[in-house]
């Protein structure tokens, strides 16, 4: 999967879902969603729902970690690993 496209799709989803489409809110690829108050624990469920459905992957319980899910960059790397693995 092409990383740049993936990055854009995820960023668009985060901006549309949690920032109500406000692109003026600067979201860096490495920004933690939780620490920056963009997403709470319920929001993480929205993120996992989105990537499971969109990329047809199954996230295991032990994969529900900030290292995998808590920034645009972490999500991109996680999805690439899952789809390639």
């Amino acid at each position, binding site marked *: 999967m092409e990383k740049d496209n993936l990055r854009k799709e995820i960023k668009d989803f985060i901006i549309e879902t949690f920032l109500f489409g406000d692109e003026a809110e600067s979201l860096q690829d490495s920004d933690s969603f*939780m620490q920056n*108050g963009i997403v*709470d*624990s*319920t929001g*993480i*469920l*929205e993120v*996992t*729902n989105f990537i499971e459905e969109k990329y047809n992957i199954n996230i295991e*319980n*032990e994969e*529900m*970690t*900030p*290292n995998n*899910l808590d920034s645009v960059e972490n999500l991109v790397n996680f999805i690439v690993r899952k789809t390639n693995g």
Partner: protein
Amino acid sequence: MFNKDSLKIDSQKVTEYLCQNILTQIRDKLKKGGAVIGISGGIDSSVVAALCARALGPKRVLGVMMPEKDSSPDSKRLALKLADTFGFEAIEESIYGGLSGLKCYEKRDEAIKSVFPEYDSSWKSKITIPTNILEKDSFNFFTLFIENEKGESKTKRLPLKAYLQIVASTNLKQRLRMTTLYYQAEKRNWAVAGTGNKDEHMQGFFVKYGDGGADLKPIAHLFKVQVYQLAKYLGVPQEIIERTPTTDTYSAEVTQEEFFFGLDFYHMDMLWYAMEHDVPPEEAAKVLNLTKEQVERGYANIKRKIVATEYLRMAPLEIE
């Protein structure tokens, strides 16, 4: 200096201080004649009821038991034992009919069936979170557990939609309890005393306008382990003190540790105290016999919950 006794309180002094405050809050600030408390046979409501009985006199205290379909039978027995011990009146107001009218069980079961199609009302259910939060830096995702009469069980991580519907429908229970308590309070011109402790209040383990809806919250600043100390001092029946804290909301018994906190009360409260007092993780680790990494995960988990549940503690927002 952070040590194993950092959360020890002088129960006599704390009791005197709380009783004085309860009296002035109810009599002078709220201008009410007594206190109504929802009693579940749990440690928190027992301590609040005992404090109110001591502060106001037992004749100015009413305990209300509010059973519904999923309540433990122990709740009523222990609540009556509590009322008997402290000499206040206890009444029973079932909320089962009201919840049925609101389709609480139907809506919850519909959401559970969307995850497990074989589920019907003969199965028991509960929601849990990971309880290994010190071992791994994990998000607090929710797992649905169901069990049938033969003891066969199934678990699955809850998808967002089902999770939200289960929580929204079971929150009707706490909101109907609040409505019931206010009926009893208003007809006497009394106040409703909330029973949440600091762990629940600050980490958001309550329902906004449900059990969070009260006129005063006398123990909202006390850690759970301190509530236990007060319970012993006040003479709360031993059986209540020894009872494992549960939510008393789901048909399958679920402890507060597995439903919400993910950690035993001693470690959670000590870690929280250490975090609040800027105790370096290395130092807290030595006292608690944990690793530095475990302490850091504990600090992060507690902080995350406090931040994520801030809206629960907010009054309705007004335009400035």
